[in-house]
């Protein structure tokens, strides 16, 4: 059993010292996602500046995987163009769905490559994806709202 692969130093570090945590104003859209099987929760807000995600703020409770994943997401996607962020998002979802067979691209995924080991634990994949699904939902809502206003 490769517990070290699951709980890599990077993950434990993000868990203990999360980046960007806390809910902030202003924001264009906010969502609340839960993992009904385990009760992990996240509230996530995004602010847009044109094509750019100008802030991702979040708060939540859950296991080290779900909380570290939100911190990595913040570090990786905050300040990125929406299209770029969705490309990274797609790569992360592919990695998590790969049952450990997908070779992650560190250029694209940065610290998120540390989650490659999580993909081998089907029960934990949803933990890792919680904040990422929330982000996609929030950005989609924010973009839709922006279009309405224009």
């Amino acid at each position, binding site marked *: *059993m490769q*517990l070290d692969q*699951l*709980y890599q130093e990077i993950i*434990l570090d993000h868990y203990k010292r999360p980046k960007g945590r806390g809910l902030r104003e202003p924001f264009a859209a906010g969502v609340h996602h839960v993992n009904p*099987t*385990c*009760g*992990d*929760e996240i509230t996530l807000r995004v602010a847009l500046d044109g094509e750019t995600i100008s802030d991702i703020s979040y708060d939540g*409770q*859950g*296991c*080290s*995987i*779900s*909380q570290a994943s939100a911190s990595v997401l913040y570090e990786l996607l905050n300040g990125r163009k929406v299209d770029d962020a969705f490309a990274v998002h797609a790569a992360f979802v592919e990695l998590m769905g790969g049952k450990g067979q997908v070779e992650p691209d560190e250029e694209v995924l940065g610290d998120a490559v540390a989650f490659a080991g999580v993909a081998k*634990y089907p029960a*934990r994949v949803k*933990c890792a994806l919680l904040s990422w699904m929330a982000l996609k939902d929030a950005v989609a809502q924010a973009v839709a709202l922006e279009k309405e206003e224009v």
Partner: protein
Amino acid sequence: MTALTIPAGMPQYDDKPRFDVERVRADFPILGREVNGHPLVYLDSGNTSQKPRQVIDAVARYYAEHNANVARSVHTLGTESTEAYEGARAKVAAFIGAPSVDEVVFTKNATEALNLVAHAFGPHAQDPRFRLGPGDEIVISEMEHHSNIVPWQLLCQRTGATLRWFGLTETGRLDESNLDELVNERTKIVSIVHMSNVLGTVNATARITARVREVGALLMLDCSQSVPHLPMDVVDYDADFIAFTGHKMLAPTGIGVLWGRGELLNAMPPFLGGGSMIETVKMTGSTFAPAPARFEAGTPPIAQAVGLGAAIDYLTAIGMDAVAWHDKELTAYALDALDTVPGLRIYGPRVPVGRGATISFTLDGIHPHDVGQVLDSLGVQVRVGHHCAKPICDRFAVPALTRASFYLYTTTDEVDALVRGLDQVRKVFA
């Protein structure tokens, strides 16, 4: 079963029934396997129990030698199958002290049994005891499994009735201080858990039963956790319905039991319609068989019922008093052992009185998912999460809990393995 030596100075426990745990363990093939390179330490029996060779063999033998559909064939195999299925029903009836075999309804699990009773209630019920509408009340508690919450919430949505509940004390006992106000002349049914699947609390039901009788309501007990662990006599408990499930008491999944007073069952409308539950069917309408057949539409879980019968034989041979005493000693040991783990907080009774062998806890600053994952790497299988009882987590303001639950094959060595594992958890997340 051989008696164990009683430590000197404990004469008051001399007469307690005991059994040889190692001999019991030898009956469970799975207990010999390894998990992640460590001997399996299975502490998730509250979730589902492991199965002894005797149950596995009974199911295999049924399929190998007797398999046929029940209650509809004149041929030999059909007769043998029917006898096996009905024989299992008789074993269940004896096991819980049911006055009549016909009061035992086989369902797929306890959830179905609870839903079946909830569905008997409605605005147009023929029997006034099941007539339910705005102004009527149903009482549950804050320590229920979701399966004893959601069916009643849905029923209240359908009928406009009001759902009310007992609160919990800080130590995880039922708060009965407002019993007389909570259970009143508007109450139609009180449905509460006998033993909590999270807190381990075994509810003392006598005062509640007395109040239920006083106001003319019905009483249902969710015995999913108690029937596998404690002697049960439905007449002694003076309940109207009890629900439990086979897979938590050494039997296969897919078989559950609803016991109800015969007179009540026959006053209830059918639940699912189909074959086997009818008296006669015409294109213009149908009439229905009496209980239990009325509630057993379609081909039932026959092999699973046979497995449940074998499980009951196994438990009866050991003796439910002995199982209960084993649970009690183990729980006393585990409560003390867990107390030595820094940062560990137990939710539920801290003394081995009025509680069963299920202990839920948190470790300071470490999420239960992470606790469970590290324990698994050491072969220790515990459940983590909200245990299908989210209101308990809300009550105690915790997002999730780690739960260790024991059974007749659990040893003090396994409790020690849990405690050692928790030390490892604390090292990983230090």
